[in-house]
Every structure is written in structure tokens, then in C-alpha cells.
């Protein structure tokens, strides 16, 4: 299957159709995406700030990581699921949208940054875990992470203002849903 056909089949899939036809789906899934996305950002920010030495270096880096990253991964899984549903509903439009493409690039960047940090810098964490200056590589990883996740959120909001929709909201809908 070539790429356009794949996008076409994603957009024609049952979850995509449900997203387009159910009145409840879009606002609820979008709200979940915002909540989960904000949770990913907020929890990662605590780790990134610790890498930058804020508020201090008393709390072990390993402890901050293990506490926060559980929450981060749960929120990321929820956000990804909600985002995939939003994507499926308008796959064709998203793929052609510049803000969406840049967001995926920023997400990839955040993933690579995290992998490099955990693969290399984090290995000798024992020597700077607590009450010690954080090495430059780890501080750079923290700063990069903040920059990339802020970019992800800004680009995400830009998608909503720059993409058209492939469907129309029904004019006189039958309401079977209360928020």
C-alpha cells in the first residue's frame, strides 16, 4: 500500500468515521488531548528544571525522574491515543499541514533528546545525583527538552488555526449527549 492510500484508509476507518459523525467525540477527545498534553509538559518540566538545578540540587535526580516519568508516560499514552483519533478524522488535511509536520518534527526531536540523555548522560548520574552541580550535557538536555515541548504545544495550537476541515458540522443535529 502506498502512502496516499494508507492515509485514505486511515481516514475511512471506523474510529475516524466515529470522530466525524459523533457530536460528542471531537470536543471530548480534544479536551482529553489538551489535559494529557499539559500533563506531559508539566511533569517533564519538573524533571527539566531539576536538571537545570531548580529549585536546588537536594532532591536526587533519579528520584525526581522515577516519580515524574511514570505520570509522563501515562499522560503521553493518553495524549497519543486522543491525538491519533483527531488525526484519523482528518488524516489527509493533517498530513499536508505545515504546523502538523513541524509538530511531529519537534516531537521527534524531544524523543531523540530524551534517548541521548538516558543513553549517555544519565549513565554516570550517581556522581551528580544529589547536592552536586549538574554536568553541562544534562543541563543542555533539560533546556532542549523545555524548548522542544514548548514548541510542540505552540505548533499544536497553530494546527487548529491553519487547517481546514474535511467535513461539515451538521446544521440541525440530533443531540444525544450532555457534557
Amino acid at each position: 500500500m502506498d502512502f496516499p492510500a494508507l492515509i485514505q484508509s486511515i481516514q475511512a476507518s471506523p474510529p475516524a468515521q466515529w470522530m466525524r459523525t459523533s457530536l460528542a467525540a471531537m470536543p471530548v477527545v480534544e479536551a482529553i488531548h489538551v489535559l494529557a498534553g499539559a500533563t506531559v509538559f508539566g511533569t517533564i518540566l519538573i524533571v527539566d528544571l531539576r536538571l537545570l538545578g531548580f529549585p536546588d540540587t537536594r532532591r536526587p535526580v533519579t528520584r525526581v525522574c522515577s516519580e515524574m516519568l511514570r505520570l509522563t508516560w501515562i499522560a503521553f499514552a493518553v495524549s497519543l491515543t486522543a491525538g491519533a483519533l483527531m488525526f484519523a478524522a482528518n488524516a489527509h488535511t493533517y498530513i499536508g499541514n505545515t504546523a502538523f509536520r513541524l509538530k511531529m518534527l519537534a516531537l521527534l526531536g524531544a524523543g531523540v533528546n530524551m534517548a541521548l540523555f538516558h543513553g549517555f548522560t544519565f549513565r554516570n548520574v550517581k556522581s551528580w545525583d544529589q547536592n552536586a552541580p549538574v554536568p553541562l550535557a544534562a543541563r543542555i538536555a533539560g533546556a532542549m527538552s523545555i524548548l522542544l515541548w514548548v514548541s510542540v504545544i505552540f505548533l499544536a495550537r497553530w494546527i487548529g488555526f491553519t487547517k481546514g476541515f474535511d467535513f461539515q458540522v451538521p446544521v440541525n443535529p440530533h443531540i444525544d449527549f450532555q457534557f
Partner: protein
Amino acid sequence: MTGVQGSIGVLQGSIGVHGFAGWLEATSASDAIKSASWVIPLLQSIHILTIGIVFISFLMIVLRVLGVMRTDEPVDAVWTRFAPWMWSGLVVMAATGITLVVGEPEREFGTVSFWLKMLLVAIGVTGTALYGRSLRSAAAGASTVFPVSAKAASVLMVILWIAVIFLGRAIAYDKQVWGALSPHA
């Protein structure tokens, strides 16, 4: 349904919301916000970014009260660590939120979600301030286990803030979410 819709109409009529929205829409401040297409997305992005800071700061305090996280620290220390982020975040949210309202008063004032959100924000801010005060006056040590009532109140506050976040997104979908209750219906 019509009764409730009627009362919303009366409420809006009595405080002259439509007239006020029209006036606000025509001000030069509103024009300035609308003048460049990037201003509103930028403000919304900052607003969402700050949700992450405020919601997670509050969640950290709550998770400590629930005994899930940072149990090595007294709740007072956790409050001192996160409350300044939470309150400054709320100030940023209010500033971006008010600017968004000045920019698009009709979009906000004409929805059920906006007014319900404002009501829950008022309850949430008051509740969070009282919550913080009672936590600090409890003078709890690191080993303190909080009573079920304190834990229940914590969970309720989290649900309240989640409802605020949902209502924020629902402003864009007022008719789909509220059906006949929405002035857009």
C-alpha cells in the same frame, strides 16, 4: 430545557451581556488583539502551556496529601515548592484569558461553557486558597497520614480543575456540547 434557556436569557439580559460584548468588540483594544492573525493563537498557546504548570503544581500537592508522592517531605515543603508556580501560573492564565475575552467577546460571552467555566474558576481559586491554608495550619510532619476527608477534598478539587479545562475546550463547541441550552442553538 426552555425554562433553563429562559433563565440564561434573563441572566444575559439583566447584566446586558450582549450589549457589553458588542461594546467590547468595538473597542480599540479588541481591534488591536484581532489585528494580527497570530495574536489569538499565541495567547491560546500560552494559556494551554500554563495549564500544564498550574494543574501539575496542584496535582503534586494533592499527590502528597494522598500519600502517593514526595512522602519523604512534609506537606508544607511540597506546598512551598509548588504553590508559587501555581499562583503565578494562574495570574498568567487570567491575563491571557482576559485578553482573549477582549479580543473575541462574542465567542466567549455567547456560550454556556464560558460562564460555567468562570463559575468553576471562582470556586476553584477560593477552594484552592482555603485548601492551602488548612494544609499549612495542620502543621503536619513528613510522617503525617491525612484523614479520608482531606483526601476526598483533594480529589474533588482535582476533578473541579479538570472540569475547568474541559469547559475551556468546550467553548469552541458550545452547540454540540450543550444542545438546546446553548444560545447558539
